[in-house]
């Protein structure tokens, strides 16, 4: 199903990506662990794509490679048809653990990316303020991260990335540490933010509902070694609201995704592996 519709531009093209780690086995000897192999994925410009797959299948590994935090051992990754550069000026990553600098005020945290890009002080402050407003936390600019709740911290982390306007947003289970209610609020908030400028987003989650609600497409990964097994289009209308969770279409998609996951689990079992 990896067909490009319309004349959409491919933002990220990953081909036969391979990544292996050296790990110690029980005898204490080094042994290669192939985490990604034959990993193919196209991410279209402006799309919201979610990676779904069993724990340890290599989702974070791919995200890290794309973010410039790790290197592939083989294959090609093209961004705008050009090879991936090491310093990721055009990508931004949001971690599950917020990763805010605790010694900086909220507004100063938003300025980090702009500082790195050598933007002048006044412009920095102005852009940071605008983006803090976008996530509804303008009143907190002079607070420190430890004074904010988890949901607020994650909103700051998102605003911090938006502030330097990367072309691609990478989000690695950004809402996994939040309570259920906050998580649902954050999903809607993210949709609202994304609708404004439709940045390309690669999102990782374990929640099927979250994947359906947010994504244009959901890419299923298999493990050992990790690769894309199937890509499902989510044909729900946009802009999406909370109510869409209760729609018939939503539960139909959920059912089919569950079936896919089930298959993957059985597949894994037959290999004697566990999730």
């Amino acid at each position, binding site marked *: 199903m990896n067909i490009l519709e319309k004349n959409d531009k491919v933002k990220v093209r990953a081909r036969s990506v391979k990544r292996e780690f050296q790990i110690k086995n029980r005898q204490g000897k080094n042994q290669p662990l192939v985490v990604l192999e034959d990993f193919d994925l196209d991410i279209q410009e402006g799309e919201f794509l979610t990676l779904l797959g069993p724990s340890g299948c290599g989702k974070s590994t791919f995200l890290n490679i794309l*973010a*410039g*935090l790790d290197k592939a051992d083989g294959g090609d990754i093209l961004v705008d048809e050009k090879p991936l550069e090491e*310093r*990721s*000026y055009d*990508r*931004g*990553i949001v*971690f599950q*653990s917020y*990763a805010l*600098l*605790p*010694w*900086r005020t909220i507004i100063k945290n938003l300025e*980090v*990316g702009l*500082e*790195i*890009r050598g933007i002048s002080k006044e412009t920095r402050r102005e852009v940071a303020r605008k983006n803090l407003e976008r996530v509804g936390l303008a009143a907190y600019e002079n607070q*420190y991260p*430890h004074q904010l709740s988890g949901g607020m911290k994650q909103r700051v982390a998102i605003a911090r*990335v938006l502030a*330097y306007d990367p072309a691609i947003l*990478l989000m690695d289970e950004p809402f996994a540490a939040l309570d259920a209610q906050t998580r649902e609020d954050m999903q809607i908030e993210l949709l609202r933010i994304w609708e404004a400028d439709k940045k390309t987003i690669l999102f990782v989650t374990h929640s099927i509902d979250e994947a359906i609600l947010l994504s244009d497409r959901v890419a299923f990964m298999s493990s050992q070694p990790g690769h894309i097994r199937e890509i499902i289009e989510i044909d729900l209308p946009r802009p999406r609201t909370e109510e869409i969770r209760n729609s018939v279409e939503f539960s139909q998609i959920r059912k089919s995704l569950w079936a896919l996951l089930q298959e993957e689990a059985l597949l894994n079992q037959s290999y004697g592996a566990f999730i």
Partner: protein
Amino acid sequence: MKSKSFDYKKLLFRSIGLILFLVLWEIAPRLGWVKRLYLQPFSEDFMALVHLILNGKLFPHLFMSLERIALGLLLATIIGVGLGLLVGYFQRINQALDLLFQIFRQVSAFALFPVFILFFGFSEVSKFGIMLWASLWPVLLNTSSGVHDVDAVLIRSVKSMGGSKLYIFFRVILPATLPQIFTGIRLSGSYCVMAVVVAEMIGAKRGLGYLVFNSRESFLYPDMYAGIITLAIVGVTLNFILVAIEKRFTSWRVA
């Protein structure tokens, strides 16, 4: 943790131990529990201190020691923080040097004093030698372990924003390590105050250590205690100042 308005009750309560100690010091010689020649009531020793202040005889010693402490601590901080950052940042260097440092740390500066004297005589070099040895390790080892403990996700996150190695070092690793650096400096400060006494006991002509030792040799026991009291005050004040600086730089920390 602390309320803004000054809490006299709390201060009084926290001083109970000190007050009891001073009372004991006052009455023990008076009741003949200890030889009065060797230990005078606290009030007498305190008056000796007041006297030394009024006749100006304390200040050359005090200033000399303060100068040595300040210089020794500055030296230890510069070398310790510098080396600590280096060792903490480059794990290979750390692996090569850690064992050596752990052993050096256990070697008493006082045991090395004769060695310094052997090489450098009764000079300032010997004095700074043992002060540096005594105070270097806390700040060095705290700094390097601080660098080592920096939350990796902070580094990864700034790197993902395009941060250079230099930017990450100065804007992530250094500020993240500051609290531990300050803890190290504070410890080093106490060691410096201890070491200055020893450094001044042998072959010095001025300094609080000299005052204490020389007063004993001249049978001026109250002056000896006055020197000891002054050293305690110096130590506490230094710690107080270092804590204040530390607070100023690490106010972002969770209380």
